[in-house]
């Protein structure tokens, strides 16, 4: 039981957070709760604090919309929040798509699909930055928020709160894509929102730190990590994981039996590295 807790505590907290947020959002529409109103595009916390998607606001800016004060405050709050806890903490702790892609990834590992696919991962993880750039160009040319009209994230999230329609098809597409086409396909390669938060996360405060002296090279961390490339230093060097592409999901921390990975505040980790 202790072992189960040790190995899945963060996963449990993440699922708890993801589902609680969905319940709170759902309750706001269904029963008029005012803890968390709106959706991930723009919310109102306790009826007072606004929080808005900075990427959506950026598209609005490109599309030529006039940004209101309320929106800018909301964007500021969200940006500060994710600068604090890690940009892509959004991806692993908040985004509802995470549960779908984690499920696909889990099944992929259990079915050993990677052993059937002989070709190495055929796509670059930089696609997301191309999609990010493209979304801004299209927003500018078409005068609408380009990604917001195709985003499966908001489709699913809105669907859960306001009625799903054919939104389930978006969920299924992403699940099948990640399961059969490309490992970590959506979240790790394509999603421009993840790309946006990767860029933001470069400067964020909370990071995972690796201590090489404790590492036994079991590579369990690389096995569970959805963004393996950020763990390049495992068993080689004691370094904080500074890449913004790390989602701070903490799966690596909990599967490590040797205490070679843990959360740390960025500055402390850097200081420890340079010897106080």
């Amino acid at each position, binding site marked *: 039981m202790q072992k189960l807790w040790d190995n899945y505590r963060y996963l449990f907290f993440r699922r708890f957070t993801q589902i609680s947020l969905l319940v709170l959002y759902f309750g706001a529409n269904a029963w008029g709760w005012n803890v968390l109103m709106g959706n991930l*595009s723009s919310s109102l916390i306790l009826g007072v604090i606004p929080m808005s998607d900075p990427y959506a606001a950026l598209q609005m800016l490109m599309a030529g919309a006039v940004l209101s004060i309320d929106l800018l405050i*909301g964007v500021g709050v969200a940006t500060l929040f994710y600068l604090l806890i890690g940009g892509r903490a959004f991806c692993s702790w908040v985004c509802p798509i995470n549960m779908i892609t984690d499920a696909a990834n889990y099944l992929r590992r259990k079915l050993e699909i990677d052993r059937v696919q002989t070709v190495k991962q055929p796509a670059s993880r930089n696609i997301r930055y*191309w999609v990010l750039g493209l979304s801004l160009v*299209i927003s500018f040319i078409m005068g609408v928020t380009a990604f917001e009209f195709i985003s499966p994230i908001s489709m699913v999230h809105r669907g859960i709160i*306001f*009625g799903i*329609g054919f939104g389930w098809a978006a969920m299924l597409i992403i699940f099948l894509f990640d399961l059969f086409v490309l490992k970590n396909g959506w979240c790790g390669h394509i999603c421009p929102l993840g790309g946006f938060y990767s860029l933001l996360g470069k400067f964020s405060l909370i990071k995972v730190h690796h201590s090489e002296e404790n590492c036994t090279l079991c590579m369990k961390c690389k096995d569970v990590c959805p963004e393996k490339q950020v763990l390049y230093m495992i068993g080689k060097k004691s370094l904080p994981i500074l890449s913004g592409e790390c989602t701070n999901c903490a799966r690596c921390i909990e599967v490590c039996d040797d205490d070679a990975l843990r959360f740390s505040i960025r500055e402390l980790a850097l200081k420890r590295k340079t010897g106080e």
Partner: protein
Amino acid sequence: MSENRPEIKKKNKKQPISDRRRFILNMARGAGIATIGGFMWSAYIDEVTASELVLRPPGALKEDDFLKTCIKCGLCVEACPYDTLLLAKPGDNKPLGTPYFIPRDVPCYMCPDIPCVPVCPTGALDEASVTTDGVLDINISDMGVAVVDDESCIAFWGIQCDACYRACPILGTAITIEYEKNTRTGKHAFMKPIVHADACTGCGMCEHACVTEKPAIFVLPRENATGEAGSYYIKGWDKEDEKRLEDAGEIKTVTEISKESAMDSLNGSLEDLY
């Protein structure tokens, strides 16, 4: 020269591609694929935002501006006490995630405090457009215009029905009943509902109340329900309407002949006769 070619080819095959070439080719590939994706993406967006017959909440900006400003958060939907407003979901064939309403199902009940408008974080629902003298005023909102189909409206058949008139929250102004002699029977009167587009807010309570199987009075976005005379015509003997032409520009056509004045042009051409 041509004899050397096969050698070069062979050499190229063995040699690894230079970093510079790899970089340039990868960039070209990225740009090419981005172009394919970009056009498909743009085409899709052009299609999904082309939906015209969408009724927006009160205070909504003009459709073009609305589509770029609405962040699709649904706060207006949650604020609506009558569950009038819906967020477009996949399958609704409306711009995805934007708020709209179907008056035949649930019309806008025109709350005096307009709870859906002030909650909008982006100003896509513009408070100023529904404010008179610093006070929210739902009666000046413009969600659309009601249109009567006089073929299916039973009041135009001579049956006494004023359901839409009674349902109208600004009855007597937005809808009036006009009496007219029924020449078909010669003995009765028509009591026809007439919509006054300048006062109608498009709330759709008339459409909701209409007794016919498919409503004979229905709301369309103002853009779709109205025409425009342009600046070629004015109402005669109407000083107000004449003002419309004060800013009208002159359309001047310049051709080879009209370079000179008309008189010169006519006189000038006479030279050819001699």
